[in-house]
């Protein structure tokens, strides 16, 4: 039967760039490819840097979930230096991480998902104005 190849690009309302290629067979998706069409090579950028820079540098991986990367880097440092961190420091980290999680979800829901859920007629936006 006839197969249909659909390119959906760009997918908007997210942090970064995303596109999807889908193969349809009689209305059923049989293959799907998602491509994030940007590459910076952060794994390479992180090499040959002072290890304590990791906390700040890794936060530049992603704007919306920066604390997650920063927190992972600071746990790594604790391991390397065999740090015993005080309870309060741990609470503080958890609060920061929790707040980041919250802002992430709130942003995602209200700014990125809601336009679709509200059924707004997106393709008329421009023609309506001109």
């Amino acid at each position, binding site marked *: 039967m006839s197969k249909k190849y659909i390119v959906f690009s760009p997918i*908007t309302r997210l942090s970064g760039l995303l596109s999807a290629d889908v193969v349809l067979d009689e209305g059923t998706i049989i293959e799907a490819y998602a491509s994030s069409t940007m590459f910076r090579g952060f794994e390479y950028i992180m090499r040959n840097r002072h290890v304590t820079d990791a906390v700040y540098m890794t936060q530049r991986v992603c704007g919306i979930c920066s604390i997650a990367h920063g927190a992972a880097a600071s746990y790594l440092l604790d391991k390397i230096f065999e740090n015993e961190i005080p309870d309060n420091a741990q609470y503080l980290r958890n609060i920061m991480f929790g707040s980041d999680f919250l802002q992430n979800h709130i942003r995602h829901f209200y700014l990125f998902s809601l336009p679709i859920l509200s059924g707004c007629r997106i393709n008329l936006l421009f023609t309506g104005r001109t």
Partner: protein
Amino acid sequence: MKRDQFQKLCRDTLKGNDFSFSQAVLPEVKKYLKKENKEKLPVIWLETNDSGDNNIAFMNTTYPYLDRVFEDIIDLWYSNTFMAAQGINALDILEKTAEKYAHEYTLVVEGAVPLKYNGLFNVLGYSKDYIIAAKNAVRWFGKHAKYVVAIGTCASFGGPTAARPNITGSVSVSEILDRAVINVSGCPVNPEWFVGTLAHLLMYGMPELDNLGRPALFYGFTVHRHCQRRSYFDNNNFAQEIGDSECMFSLGCSGPRTGADCPYRMWINHVSWPVKVNTPCIGCTNKDFPDGSSPFFTPLPKKSGSKKEDSGKEQDS
């Protein structure tokens, strides 16, 4: 409001934490648009190689809040992050906007532009027949824009994206455009610097730029100059470890060579800034960030990548 009144408000060191600058922006813009019978600023926003942190920081704008900026200051026609349209509809809007507002729209570029492999490290969108590489898009839309604003340090100077070894061959926006680019640097940018710049463009046109192409309104003084710990510095009282209340020059603070108004503008609704929360400034608005500031916890004279002429700001006393 007269141009110089507005600029004074932007620069005023005392006005940072009482919101008077940001609260003034919206009413002024509204008054201006009504009086001059003008339209809002048409904006095309392209996201290239960065972490998306600048649009996140922009969402944190308060007085005017994000919805007010969209309603009353700018007409954001294309933005990968904010627009409702997707796929081919989105690209359609991009094309029509560029046609309708040719030489009128403001191009905002967020992120550095990779040049290697024909720019394929950053593709804004594609179909079976074409690929829109950021490199070509920024060049084309940059040519037909009235103003080009580079938001964030990646777009302004290359930033973390172009940090060594820079395997994507990323460069700043100004490097691939043969025209004036307003560099609103910062990693991420402070929303007030950006919204203030947009308001200035709308009402008074091009703002005065410093030697790195940044609006002098916001980057004119070093962080060090107005830092709350400055008296410790002047008296040679330096922090021994993170968490001490003295000057953090000893812990790698880049404040003395970084132009920004963080100490009084502060961040996230004017709540705090790095030195206030016990972490040294890492010089994120600088031309050579991050390599010039690293290792971040090594004192300035001993930093490996620091070159004085790259910082754009002479060490002030």
